[in-house]
C-alpha cells in the first residue's frame, strides 16, 4: 500500500538525510524503523506526509504519488496518514477533546472547526476512542494537565480519528518510562491490528521494537542496511547499523518475554 521509490532528501545545508530509499509496505503491516540518531528516521516518515519536502524520488500511497500533489490534494491525502509524535505534540492549551477532534480538521470546513461544531458522528467517535484508551473522563481537561502516557494516548486518538490507512509514528516512547513505553507500544500495535492499519514506527529501543513488530528496518546514514523479521537482528546486524558495541544485553531473550507476559 505504501511504496517509496528512490526517495532522497538533501537538506539545504548539504546534509544527506535520505539516500535513495526504496521500501514497500503491504496493507496492515507494522514496521519498526531503527537506527542511530541522525540516521534519517524522522526525515523518512516526514517525507511521506511531506511535513518535510523530499528532494527527489516518489512516495506512493495506494498508487497516489504523494510527492507530486498540489496543496489541496496533499491535504486530502494527509487525512489517510495519521501521525503520532515523540513529545506527543498535543496543542497544550486546548482541551483533550479539541485535540482529538483536531484529527477531523481535514474533513470539516473552517467555520465548523472554528466554532467547534463538529458533526455528531465525529464527536461520538472521539468519545469512543477516548474510552478505548481509558481517558473518557479526561475529555474536558486541558492537554497540559495530563501525564506523559496519557498525552500520548490522546495523540493516538487524534491520529486514529482521521480514519487513516497508515500510521506514521515518530519515537512514541522516547519520553516515557519503561512500563508506559510498553503499554503505549502494545496499544498502538493492538489498534493497528483491530483496524488493519499499516504503521511505520521510529524507535530507539531495539528490544521494545522486537517485542511488538513483524518487520524491522535498519537505517544508517540515510540508507537501508537491514530489512527483515525481528528474530534476524543479530549482534552483527546491530553493529552494522549502530557501530561496534556489546549487543548481547540489548537483544531480547525469550525468557524475558515470558516474564513480561506474566506481568501484563
Amino acid at each position, binding site marked *: 500500500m505504501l511504496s517509496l521509490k528512490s526517495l532522497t532528501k538533501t537538506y539545504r545545508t548539504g546534509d544527506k538525510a535520505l539516500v535513495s530509499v526504496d521500501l514497500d509496505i503491504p496493507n496492515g503491516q507494522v514496521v519498526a524503523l531503527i537506527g542511530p540518531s541522525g540516521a534519517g528516521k524522522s526525515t523518512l516518515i516526514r517525507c511521506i*506526509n511531506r*511535513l518535510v519536502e523530499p528532494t527527489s524520488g516518489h512516495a506512493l500511497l495506494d498508487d497516489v504519488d504523494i510527492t507530486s500533489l498540489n496543496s*489541496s490534494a496533499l*491535504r*486530502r*491525502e*494527509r*487525512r489517510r*496518514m495519521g*501521525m503520532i*509524535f*515523540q*513529545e506527543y*505534540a*498535543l*496543542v*497544550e*492549551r*486546548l482541551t483533550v477533546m*479539541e485535540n482529538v477532534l*483536531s*484529527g*477531523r*480538521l*481535514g*474533513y470539516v470546513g*473552517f467555520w465548523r*472547526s*472554528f466554532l467547534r461544531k463538529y458533526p455528531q458522528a465525529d464527536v461520538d467517535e472521539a468519545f469512543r476512542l477516548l474510552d478505548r484508551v481509558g481517558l473518557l473522563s479526561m475529555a474536558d481537561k486541558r492537554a497540559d494537565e495530563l501525564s506523559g502516557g496519557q498525552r500520548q494516548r490522546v*495523540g493516538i486518538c*487524534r491520529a486514529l480519528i*482521521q480514519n487513516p490507512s497508515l500510521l*506514521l509514528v515518530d519515537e512514541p516512547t522516547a519520553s516515557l518510562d519503561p512500563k508506559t513505553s510498553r503499554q503505549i507500544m502494545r496499544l498502538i500495535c493492538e489498534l493497528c491490528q483491530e483496524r488493519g492499519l499499516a504503521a511505520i514506527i521510529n524507535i530507539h529501543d531495539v528490544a521494545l521494537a522486537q517485542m511488538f513488530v513483524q518487520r524491522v528496518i535498519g537505517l544508517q546514514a540515510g540508507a537501508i542496511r537491514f530489512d527483515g523479521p525481528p528474530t534476524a537482528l543479530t549482534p552483527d546486524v546491530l553493529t552494522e547499523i549502530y557501530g561496534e558495541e556489546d549487543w548481547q544485553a540489548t537483544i531480547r531473550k525469550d525468557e524475558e518475554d515470558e516474564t513480561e507476559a506474566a506481568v501484563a
Partner: protein
Amino acid sequence: MTPALDTKLGQPWRKPPFIKRLWLRWSLGVSAVLYLIAAVASIDVNWARVYEGLDRGAAFIMSFTRPDFVSRAGDIWDGMLESLIMTVAASVVGIVISIPIGLGAARNIAPLPVYLICRSIVALSRALQEIIVAILLVAIFGFGPLAGFLTLSFATIGFLSKLLAEDIEAMDKVQAEAIRSTGANWMQWINYGVQPQVMPRLIGLSMYRVDINFRESAILGLVGAGGIGATLNTAFDRYEFDTAAAILMIIIVIVMALEYLSGVIRARVQ
C-alpha cells in the same frame, strides 16, 4: 597524565576576554573615558537660572499637596472622557489590524513577500514617534480627538504586530506540525496550531497597550490631538498648577487601575 594536562596543572585559569586583541581592548577603553570627560565638560549649566527655577519647581511640587479638582471639574471630566474614548477606540482598532499584520510578519508562517510587506509596515509605525505622527495628523484632520485616535491606532499596530510576530516565531513548531499532519487547511492550522500558543501573550500585550495608549493620550493633547492632555496643557499655560496636579493625579490613578486590571487578566488567561 598526558603532557597537555601537565602544562595546564598549577596554572591559574581566567575567562577569555570579550575583545581578544589587546591594543583594541585598551584603545576602546581609553577612548570611552576620554569621551565621558569631554561630554561632561561640554554641559553648559547656568546655575543662576537653576536657582531661580527652583522656586517654580517647588511651587509645582507643592501644588500636589493641594490639588484643585473643583474649579475646572467640567473641563477635567470632559478631557478624561475624551481620553478614555480615544484609548478604547484606538486600542480596539489597533489590535484588530495588528493581528493579520502580526501573522504576516512572522517568518515561520508567512511567505517572503507578505513577510517583507508586513515588516515594512511595522518598521514604519515604529520609526515614527507618536508625537510626530500626531503633529502630522493634526495638520491633516485639525485639532481634536480624531487625530489622537488615529495616532494611537497607528502606534498600536507597530507595537503589537511586532511582539505578536515574535511570539509566533518562538512557538513550539511540533504542535503546529501535528495540526498540519491531520490535513488541516491554513486557517484551521492557524486556529488550532498557532492561536492557542500565542493567545495568552496576545491578551497580555493588548492590555499593556491599552494602558500605554491611555498614558500617550495625555501627552498627545499637548500637540492638539485632544483628550486630557489638552486640558492639562491649558492648566499649565494658565499657571494653574493645582488643577494640573489634580489632572496628573487622576492620570496616575487610572494608569494604576489599568495596570492592576491587566495583571488580573493576564493571570487568568495563562
